[in-house]
């Protein structure tokens, strides 16, 4: 199993550009999450999904959109990039929210810089 994969690993955007961060998991997990990590800080939840076709906002959803058309994929869309979106983005997945299956598995992250 590859686990959770994210592309790209690095990206530099200009202010006002748009992009999609890709996230794929091959563990048949129902739950998927997008977090952002600002320098020296903890992770903050952007959006999450509890299954295909179901998404909801987390703590910091402004400026982002998501979709979940399949169990495997959970792309994060940035519209009109702003310097405040400079961060490292992590995708995560879990089979459930209860034990023993509530461990979240994380992807390697995407470092995004908006200039």
């Amino acid at each position, binding site marked *: 199993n590859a686990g959770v994969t994210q592309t790209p690993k690095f990206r530099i955007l200009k202010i006002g550009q748009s992009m999609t961060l890709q996230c794929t998991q091959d563990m048949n997990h129902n739950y998927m*999450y997008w977090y952002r990590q600002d320098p020296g800080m903890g992770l903050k939840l952007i959006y999450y999904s509890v299954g295909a076709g179901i998404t909801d906002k987390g703590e910091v959803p402004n400026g982002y959109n998501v979709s979940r058309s399949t169990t495997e994929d959970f792309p994060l869309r940035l519209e009109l990039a702003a310097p405040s979106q400079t961060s490292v983005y992590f995708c995560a997945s879990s089979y459930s*929210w*209860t034990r023993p299956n509530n461990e979240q598995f994380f992807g390697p992250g995407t470092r995004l810089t908006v200039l």
Partner: protein
Amino acid sequence: AQTVTQSQPEMSVQEAETVTLSCTYDTSENNYYLFWYKQPPSRQMILVIRQEAYKQQNATENRFSVNFQKAAKSFSLKISDSQLGDTAMYFCAFMKHASNTGKLIFGQGTTLQVKP
């Protein structure tokens, strides 16, 4: 709203010694999960240990153990026999049991350096 606080931005320990990382949280929930995640320089987040609030027994995983004090809302991580590979940022995280969503709330993190 739940909050998680890690009051030690940086810590260091000598190899083979023991170190304790602190975490406090604020919640009105009675049932929840608590986690410690490790983020080494590679950036990969790895689960270290987890605790269910309704279990009084402290969780242990090899050299890692927790001191869970529910009334004090404290959840510290003890690393015994520290190894160079333990050098990483450590995050404490909270998950509400009743949320049905698995949403994690993270603390700010503690950077741990293990010195040879």
